[in-house]
């Protein structure tokens, strides 16, 4: 696969986003604003806004599985989502569950023939869909009926939120970009993949293990997008030659970075949001995109096949795309919204420090399907036997 076919596979969309990203209007949406404001402020929300009388008729308990930082972070999106959603739909009670092992937990349940009692999964990535289909014969998530999601047309049309799922099982609710974070007092700005193999970046780069870590896997897939599946290992040999060093997950690699073990680390393009909040010197928190690209890692939501709460689940997905929810999820998760700019208002304190690349890159479902495990294993063996 060369880069052209890849980009074609991604829809060939070229998006020009300013470095300051997705700032659109600044009408000062307050964090604490309830959802009622949504309908008032949002002129494109017509009959579908949350004061829709249909909303009051929905009743029952909706079980939503997610990952723990959605609920446990310092300012967690999950807490806001639960309160605002239950306020918008007084008849629905949202119950969170955090499975150990994420989606793998449900794949194993299905493998063992044990019923899944959860309705919705919040936090699906493209590779989860590939893993499901490579493992199970049956469908774990339903093909979504798009016309049951009123706000579906608000979703951005660019590769940064694209799943390319042939079964249409997922709606994106936010996205992020893998980029480099570097110390400008120690290394020049890295601008291309070839830079990273140059002497000036010798023993400079920290990466994460692609076997376990999302950003680690994203960076590996980015090199595959760049060099193709026949060329990426050669590039990695050059990287190893130049002293690239890996840690098991983002956390360890970032610890090593903060303790100044290395001047450059694979991380998220929202790095400065945290750096500013924690009082770090920004010269050590410069964000570097390679060739103007960043690897997109959209997060999506899907409905379990076993769920009998379809109405509630669709209402929940639609809610996630609402104006307030998009702003709150983005700022609290420190990710980018999944909807187009005109459907969300982000605070400047966020957009000043969260950067989007000119050209988001990502491998879609078809690229990964049947290939992912082998790519990662070949890569891991190369690093383990260096």
């Amino acid at each position, binding site marked *: 696969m060369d880069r052209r076919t890849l980009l074609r596979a991604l829809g060939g969309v070229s998006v020009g986003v300013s470095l300051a990203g997705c700032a659109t209007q600044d009408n000062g949406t307050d964090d604490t604003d309830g959802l009622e404001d949504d309908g008032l402020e949002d002129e494109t929300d017509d009959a579908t806004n949350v004061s829709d009388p249909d909303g009051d008729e929905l009743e029952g308990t909706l079980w939503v599985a997610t990952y723990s930082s959605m609920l446990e972070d310092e300012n967690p999106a999950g807490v806001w989502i639960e309160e605002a959603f239950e306020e918008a739909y007084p008849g629905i009670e949202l119950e969170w569950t955090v499975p150990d092992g994420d989606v793998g937990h449900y794949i194993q349940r299905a493998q063992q023939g044990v019923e899944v009692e959860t309705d919705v999964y919040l936090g699906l990535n493209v590779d989860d869909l590939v893993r499901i289909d490579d493992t199970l014969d049956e469908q774990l998530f339903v093909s979504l009926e798009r016309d049951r999601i009123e706000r579906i047309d608000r979703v951005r049309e660019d590769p940064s939120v694209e799943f390319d799922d042939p079964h249409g099982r997922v709606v994106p609710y936010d996205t992020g970009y893998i980029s480099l974070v570097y110390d400008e007092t120690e290394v020049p700005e890295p601008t291309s993949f070839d830079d990273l193999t140059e002497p000036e970046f010798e023993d400079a780069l920290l990466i994460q293990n692609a076997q376990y870590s999302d950003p680690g896997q994203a960076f590996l897939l980015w090199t595959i997008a760049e060099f193709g599946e026949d060329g990426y290992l050669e590039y990695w040999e050059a990287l190893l030659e130049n002293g690239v060093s890996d*840690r098991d997950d983002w956390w360890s690699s970032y610890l090593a970075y903060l303790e100044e073990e290395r001047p450059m680390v694979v991380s998220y393009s929202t790095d400065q949001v945290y750096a500013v909040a*924690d009082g770090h010197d920004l010269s050590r928190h410069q964000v570097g995109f390679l060739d103007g690209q960043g690897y997109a890692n959209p997060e999506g939501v899907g409905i379990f096949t076993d769920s009998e709460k379809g109405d509630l689940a669709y209402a929940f997905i639609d809610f996630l795309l609402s104006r307030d929810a998009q702003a709150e999820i983005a700022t609290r998760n420190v990710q980018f919204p999944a909807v187009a700019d005109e459907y969300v208002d982000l605070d400047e304190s966020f957009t000043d420090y969260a950067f989007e690349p000119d050209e988001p890159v990502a491998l879609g479902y078809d690229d990964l399907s049947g290939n992912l495990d082998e790519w990662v294993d070949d890569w891991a063996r190369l690093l383990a036997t260096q």
Partner: protein
Amino acid sequence: MADSSGPDAGTTSPATSVVRTLTGWTGRHALALAALATAAVLGVVAYLPIGLVFAEAFLEDGRLTLAAFHAVLTDPFYVGPLAGVFEEPLALGTHFSALFAWVRAGFPAVGMGLFGFTAYQAALSTLASLALGLPAAYVLATYEFRGRQTLRSLTILPFVLPGILVAAGFYAMFGQAGTLNTLLGTVGLGPYPFLSRYPLAVVVLAHAFYNAPLVARITVAAWESLDVSALETARSLGASRRRAFLDVVVPQLLPAVLTGALLTFVFTFMTFPIVLALGGLQLATVEVWVYDRVGRLAFAEAATLAILETVVSLSLTYAYLRYESAQASVARVGRPPSREALFPDWRLETLCAPRRLAVVGYGLLALVVFVGPLASLVLGSLTDGSGFTLAHYRFLAERQATGASYQTLPWPAVRNSLLFGLATLALAVPMGVVIAVLVARSRWGAVIDTLAMVPLAVSGIVFGIGLLQGLVFGVSLPGGTRLQFTGVAAIVAAHAVAAYPFVVRTVSPVLGGLDPAMVESARALGATRARALLDIELPLVASAVVAGAAFAFAISIGEFSSTVILASGGDTYTMPVALERYLGRRSGPALAMGTVLLVVTALSFVVIDRVGGRFEHR
């Protein structure tokens, strides 16, 4: 329990005599009943789950096969040059000529394969743990100084720390911007890239950070159970201090030292997150690939690798146990050795005695290796990019005060950890003692003992998957229902299964050293086996039992995966689980929770040792 087994139970009502007969029966068979209960817990919470996963290695599409083993054993990536041998085991000529060519070429470096490297780093880690742990045991057992008992209690503190916390501690201590380099900077040295330049050494040191305390604690326990009269006899017969030590003390301590070494090797052979967190894939172990395969739901390959790991660990365990049981009871337990004051006076002459200088030198080293990372962690929980802050503790307080029901709150985590720890201790200590007694003089002792060590010798990742598939998903019964076992009881049982091998290993060498004549005379005088154990043997080995109890508690406190897997909803999370969940893009909240874990655990160890100490010196 009243001793009613005597012949003169007296004249009482029929009802009382039934009760007496029953208690008498249980008294006589107490040991057998306890052994059965132990076997039942092990069966449900260890052998069934592990068996379920291991079975996957032999099955492909429902047929029995060894294909998975063939694939692993003939892959040079896993087994290095042995792959050729496994490929064609009978082509001896080829193998010998290859060996000959290698010898003639002057023993060039050979890729070790994943298994080879795993064993290599485990061996290095074991040596490092002995080198750091034995001096600590020596100091703690032979010198008296202020805070000795507290220090002894705290030795196993590193043992409970989650891997991520140890990694964080090592980065904070030894990183380029870490505490050590900051200190060196004040005298104009550094900064030195300790972590980047010597990754293998750093990982070995981190393993020693975990396991040297284990070696020290087990050895101290044996040392305090030594019989000092033999030493005095040797000295009175004119043996030099050194000779008496080598001939009398060392043989009595050797089983404990080797036990520590064995446990360290088994642990570090299956080391997992710490190697990747500090060193990366170039230091990958077999367990790294087990985890990867489990993550990809490739259970057959994961199980195959895990079985091979277990075979290595259990073979070593069996070899050691044969040795241990061959050690004749070397001594009667008599008076424990007395300790001399570390600093009897403060004269320069005393202070500069070579032995005391060595002790002080070791103390400084221990300060850097053990206290350094822990102190740096605490420091990290009190700082952010702009300096000192209490924000991370404020996070904990706010979460406690206003957290939603589905969020993880600090206090329930502390409470659960302590409750589970105590329950584990209460379950694991009897289990361990029973096994230790059973194997002490049984002909099949080494075999039973090896089987009893299975929970230690099985990959923790595979054990977790087994618990999920066996106990959480449950075993399906006819009629469509599923038999499941989750929640608090299951968590405690799983902790006890992981913990009791430590009780066995600390108690067994000392128990085996007791003179069997003592128990025989007690039995001859009418005591049941259980009573003889409680009244005669256990008090004599109390130091080892207390050490085992502390280990059981420590294992429970530090346990992570089964706690998460067996949680049946609700708030059954513990401190390490809370720490893991607070781990977001910022390290502060997790470090604050880690500090809470450190403080709570340290206090618990001191209490356990103080309470246990009462039994030690009756």
